[in-house]
């Protein structure tokens, strides 16, 4: 018996009876619980590297509801490496302009003004079901190319037993229960993670006493493709703040901040939602309600994202407020960080302790996201009388004076974190631009036939700029690729020189499979590169 918890938007992995029922438990190298954006990204990454991976999901596809709608450049770059990015960008709505209102006054507008010379846009809006579908499409493509990925729909995990060097998993299906074993288990089962509860692990943080009503409406309106945000909106009963943002298929996301003491059932009645939407869009606006929901949120994380053979990724490990698009985006970065490490561990090329760096680095990322989204929430929902006085003072001043605009916080939009000072980092011996320092994710840039990140791919890579690289093809079995570029010929816009060299004539970068910088030098020999690869894989420098 498998409970149906939600309706499906796309049926992507219909239930099939598993041969394992009634047989002895089969051991799998990697099992992922939860086929959402994080689980699918991790499965795709591992499978494309040749590590067999099994995804268990208790439904047969993607749940309904737009949910995470805002996907950031780094996420799109990761998905591009996984073969799903272009479909997302093609379907998504690209936006750059945001307007901030206070009551009926426009406070200011901003333009993200994305830097030129990146393959991916700064942000797209895309309903989460599409995002997940494109990942599963890429899984199917990878499977047809022989990648060892399996997805089992309507396989619900009911118990987990952790042993010293493997995990036993009890699973229920429409045809009855069975058991399997996993060398490694990745829990991508969301903010209410049953895996976390089954292991009795804590998930501490701060609860925000507020309810947000989402109304996705379908209409052909000539509002521009912009993010409109109201503090103390002027429309009737619209709460403390409101947001209007465009999605594909003529769908508009409207959010109303309703406060804490509400009657959920009453607020979710279509006639009550329509009254609010009518007040916002104007009487007689022609629209249909596509999806509605009320959500509350917390900012919290697990103390560690690794518990022996069990790894937590995405919302199961950390939860943030939605302001800033840091939920799904940071989860995909978790998958990006974990997959190459687990792949090396499974293949016996790196020690298990490499997985501790997954927790170290992504806890760092989660703390940054929680800090940013907590600050945004405190601005949106002032907790005391004086904090509201200051908040409104900022909004009033921002209408007249540029200085106050950077203080307005309706969500600081997700950017990838830099792993400054963490254990996998090698030497930073190039006086290059700060943005490309050790620990940063590589900035994209045009090359002769495409973009740099496409060329980096998903291996350790030596990027030699205006210098001959030391010839390292392999470090103790770990492949190292080399890309040599001469910025006089291979840098059509000058972006590579600007983003990687600054005023330096030449440089050598060592880049991880997740495209973060391990080390950089003005001059490096083979021994330097080998030592840095060993540091980045926890085998001693």
């Amino acid at each position, binding site marked *: 018996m498998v409970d149906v918890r939600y309706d499906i938007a796309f049926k992507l992995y219909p239930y099939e009876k598993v041969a394992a029922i009634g047989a002895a438990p089969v051991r799998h190298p990697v099992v992922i619980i939860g086929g959402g954006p994080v689980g699918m990204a991790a499965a795709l990454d591992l499978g494309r590297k040749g590590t067999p991976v099994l995804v268990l999901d208790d439904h047969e596809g993607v749940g309904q509801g737009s949910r995470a709608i805002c996907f950031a450049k780094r996420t799109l770059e990761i998905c591009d490496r996984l073969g799903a990015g272009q479909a997302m960008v093609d379907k998504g709505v690209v936006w750059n302009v945001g307007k901030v209102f206070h009551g009926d006054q426009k406070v200011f507008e901003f333009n993200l003004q994305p830097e030129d010379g990146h393959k991916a846009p700064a942000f797209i809006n895309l309903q989460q079901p599409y995002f997940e579908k494109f990942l599963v499409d890429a899984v199917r493509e990878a499977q047809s190319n022989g990648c060892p990925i399996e997805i089992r729909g309507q396989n619900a995990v009911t118990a987990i037993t952790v042993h010293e060097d493997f995990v036993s998993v009890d699973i229920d299906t429409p045809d009855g229960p069975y058991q399997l074993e996993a060398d490694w288990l990745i829990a991508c089962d969301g903010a209410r993670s049953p895996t976390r509860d089954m292991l009795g692990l804590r998930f501490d943080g701060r609860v925000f006493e507020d309810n947000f009503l989402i109304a996705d409406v379908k209409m052909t309106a000539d509002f521009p493709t912009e993010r409109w945000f109201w503090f103390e909106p002027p429309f009737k009963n619209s709460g403390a703040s409101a947001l209007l943002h465009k999605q594909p298929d003529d769908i508009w996301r409207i959010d109303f901040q309703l406060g804490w003491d509400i009657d959920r059932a009453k607020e979710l009645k279509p006639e009550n939602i329509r009254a609010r939407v009518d007040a916002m869009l104007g009487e007689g606006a022609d629209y249909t309600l596509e999806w509605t929901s009320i959500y509350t949120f917390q900012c919290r994380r697990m103390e560690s994202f690794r518990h022996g053979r069990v790894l937590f990724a995405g919302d199961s490990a950390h939860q943030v407020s939605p302001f800033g698009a840091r939920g799904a985006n940071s989860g995909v970065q978790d998958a990006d960080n974990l997959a190459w490490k687990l792949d090396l561990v499974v293949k016996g090329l790196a020690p298990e302790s490499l997985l501790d760096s997954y927790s170290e680095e992504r806890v760092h990322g989660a703390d940054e996201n929680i800090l940013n989204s907590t600050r945004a929430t405190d601005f949106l929902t002032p907790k005391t009388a004086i904090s509201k006085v200051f908040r409104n*003072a900022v909004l*009033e*001043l921002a209408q007249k004076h540029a*200085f*106050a605009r950077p203080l307005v916080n309706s969500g600081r939009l997700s950017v990838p974190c830099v792993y400054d000072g963490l254990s996998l980092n090698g030497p930073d011996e190039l006086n290059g631009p700060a943005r490309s320092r050790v620990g940063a994710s590589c900035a994209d840039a045009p090359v002769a036939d495409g973009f740099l990140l496409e060329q980096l791919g998903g291996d350790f890579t030596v990027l030699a700029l205006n210098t001959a690289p030391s010839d390292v093809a392999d470090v103790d079995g770990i492949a190292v690729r080399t890309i040599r570029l001469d910025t006089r010929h291979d840098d059509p816009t000058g972006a590579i020189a600007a983003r990687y060299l600054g005023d330096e004539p030449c440089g050598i970068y060592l880049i991880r499979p997740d495209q973060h910088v391990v080390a950089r030098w003005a001059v490096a020999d083979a021994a330097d590169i080998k030592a840095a690869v060993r540091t980045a894989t926890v085998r001693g420098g």
Partner: protein
Amino acid sequence: MELNLAPNINDPDGFYDELLGAHNGLSKDESDAFNARLILVLANHIGDRAILRAALEAAK
């Protein structure tokens, strides 16, 4: 630079008069809002985070 806590305002009585005068006719809420705006304007002028932190400490 350090936070200057020595006398630094010319014509202190005149300044004090102007400060109070700016609140003339304002309700309590309007005065609170005015003070908040004034703090933000002055803080931006100072800019230096270390000085601002020292000022927050000095005002306690």
